């Protein structure tokens, strides 16, 4: 556990542990900003073989009692046809700054609106899948 992770509320820590156990052993928190943790998921699936997997999901420190909001990536996401994902795409947005030193440069301002209510730290795995679906349908 790094210094950032030691600051996290217990439900968030539990979610991170479950994410590592069930989804990505290398998941980590790279930044905390504006009540959101930037959680790097190393195996977040993309649409094309040319893209590196991974991205930072913005998880509220109050997770699961508040909703995820946005994704930051190193490279612009591509659709399966090779065009850029355009859904709520904000290149170079200030929301990337907390992880810009790690290469974060592309922000997708996706919200949890209309998605099922979250109520447990174990929902983190479904959240990761939800992000992959947003990428796929972008």
């Amino acid at each position, binding site marked *: 556990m790094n210094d950032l992770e030691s600051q996290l509320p217990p439900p968030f820590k539990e979610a991170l542990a479950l994410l590592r156990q069930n989804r990505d052993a290398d998941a980590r928190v790279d930044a905390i900003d504006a009540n959101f943790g930037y959680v790097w998921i190393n195996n977040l699936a993309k649409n094309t073989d040319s893209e590196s997997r991974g991205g930072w999901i913005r998880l509220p420190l109050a997770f699961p009692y508040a909703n995820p909001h*946005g994704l930051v990536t190193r490279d612009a996401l591509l659709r399966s046809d090779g065009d850029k994902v355009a859904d709520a795409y904000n290149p170079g947005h200030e929301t990337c700054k907390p992880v810009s030193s790690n290469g974060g440069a592309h922000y997708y*301002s*996706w919200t949890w609106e209309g998605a*099922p209510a979250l109520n447990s730290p174990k929902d983190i795995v479904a959240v990761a899948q939800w992000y992959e679906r947003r990428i796929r349908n972008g």
Partner: protein
Amino acid sequence: MSTANQLSNTEHHDEIHIIFVGEIEEKWREDVVKASEIMQKAGVSDPSNFILEALNRKGGDPVAEFKPADSVDLEEKDRKFFRITPGGGGRS
């Protein structure tokens, strides 16, 4: 269409389809099942806002997705391993 052919389209096959939704094993005698039924059998009491995703292997990548009212043909390729993913989502 002959009577025999009419029967073949309506009868259930003897084969039982064994599928996995995450770690949960399900057995279906029908070839075509509603996605909502698969999700409910896996323990989702209200699947209305969830998506059933078919995977290319256990723990693999999604290759198809089904809304609750969609029919899933369990005889098709890559219809053995599934996962349930939240639907919905907006943008700011």
